[in-house]
C-alpha cells in the first residue's frame, strides 16, 4: 500500500467512519501517521502508558494480557483492518489495558493521545464522531471478554 496516497481512501471505505464528513476525514488523514510495522512488532505494552491509539489499515494484531502466575499470556482478541486499539488508556489516562502485537506485517495509522484530547477540548465535531468510534470499539472489547468468560464457564458445566 502506498500509505500516504491511499489512507484517505481507506478511511472512506471503513463503515465505522461513515458518519464522518469528507472534511473531517481529511483532518484525520492529516492528523494520523501511517506506518508499516514488521511481524511481532509490539505497538503497546500493558506495562506502560502509551502515547497513541492505532487504526489497523492492513494485517492482523493480537491483543494479550499477562496472567501473573498461572498461564503466562492470555489472548483477549484478534483485530484486523478497521479496528482501533489503545483506547482504554486514552480514555482513563492510566497504563495500557493490554499488550498489542503484530501478527505478520501490519500497516497502521496512529493518532497521538494529546491530539485527540486537544480536539475534544476544542469542542471539535470530529472529536465527538471519533468518540463514537471509541465507544463502539470498547463495547466490542467488552463483549469479547464476556463471551470468552461465558464460554470458559459453560465448558465446565456438565450437560
Amino acid at each position, binding site marked *: 500500500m502506498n500509505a500516504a496516497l491511499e489512507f484517505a481512501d481507506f478511511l472512506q471505505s471503513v463503515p465505522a467512519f461513515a458518519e464522518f464528513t469528507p472534511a473531517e476525514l481529511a483532518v484525520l488523514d492529516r492528523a494520523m501517521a501511517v506506518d508499516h510495522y514488521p511481524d511481532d512488532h509490539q505497538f503497546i505494552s500493558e506495562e506502560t502508558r502509551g502515547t497513541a491509539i492505532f487504526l489497523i489499515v492492513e494485517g492482523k494484531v493480537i491483543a494479550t*494480557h499477562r496472567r501473573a502466575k498461572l498461564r503466562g499470556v492470555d489472548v483477549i482478541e484478534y483485530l484486523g483492518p478497521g479496528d482501533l486499539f489503545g483506547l482504554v488508556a486514552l480514555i482513563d489516562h492510566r497504563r495500557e489495558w493490554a499488550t498489542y502485537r503484530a501478527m505478520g506485517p501490519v500497516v497502521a495509522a496512529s493518532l497521538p493521545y494529546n491530539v485527540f484530547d486537544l480536539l475534544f477540548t476544542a469542542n471539535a465535531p470530529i472529536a465527538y464522531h471519533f468518540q463514537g468510534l471509541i465507544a463502539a470499539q470498547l463495547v466490542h472489547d*467488552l463483549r469479547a471478554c464476556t463471551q470468552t468468560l461465558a464460554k470458559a464457564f459453560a465448558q465446565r458445566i456438565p450437560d
Partner: protein
Amino acid sequence: MQHRTDREVPTANLTADGLQRRFAVLLERFTRRELQILLDALERSDADPGQELHRGGDPIDTLYLIWEGRLALAMPVGNEIIALGTLGPGEFIGTAAVIDPGPAMVTLTVIEPSILLRLDRAGLQALRKAQPRVGGQLLRALSLDLAERLRLYEEGMAERTQPADVGEFIRLCRPLLGIKDISP
C-alpha cells in the same frame, strides 16, 4: 417488552441537579445546561416488579438509568441461568446496547417498583445530531465506564485460568455488566 411510560407524570424530583446527584460519577463533567439537555432526551419509564425489560438473547438498544427501584440481572450460560446480582438507584445498564445494538447478554427483571430513565439508540443519535457536545460528553462518560469495567475484569482475571465455580463466574462477570459491587 411492555413499558408503562408516562411523560405527563410530574417530574418534581427529575431535575438537572437531581440527575447529577443521582448519577454523580457518570455525569460529573456535565454542566447544568448539558444536564438539562440530557434530561430532556431521556424518557421516563415506570416499571413494576416482575416485569421483564428484556431476556438474554433479545435484540436491545436501550440504556436504562435507574432513578428509583431495583433490577435483577441473570445470564443464560449453557443449560443454566446464573443470577448475577442487582442494580439500584444511581446505577445504569445498557451501555453496550445503546452504543452498538445487539443481542442482550442478560435477562433484566424489575424486582422493586422502579422509575427508569431510558435512552434508546435512535434517541442517542438524535441527541448527537442536535447537541453534538452533549452527545459527545455522554459517549465519553459511557466510554470511561466501559474502560473501568474492562480494567476491573482484567484485575479479577489476573491470577486465574478460568472461573472455577459459579461464585467465581459471578464475581468475574459483575464488572463486565456494570455491577459495581464485586464482593461475594
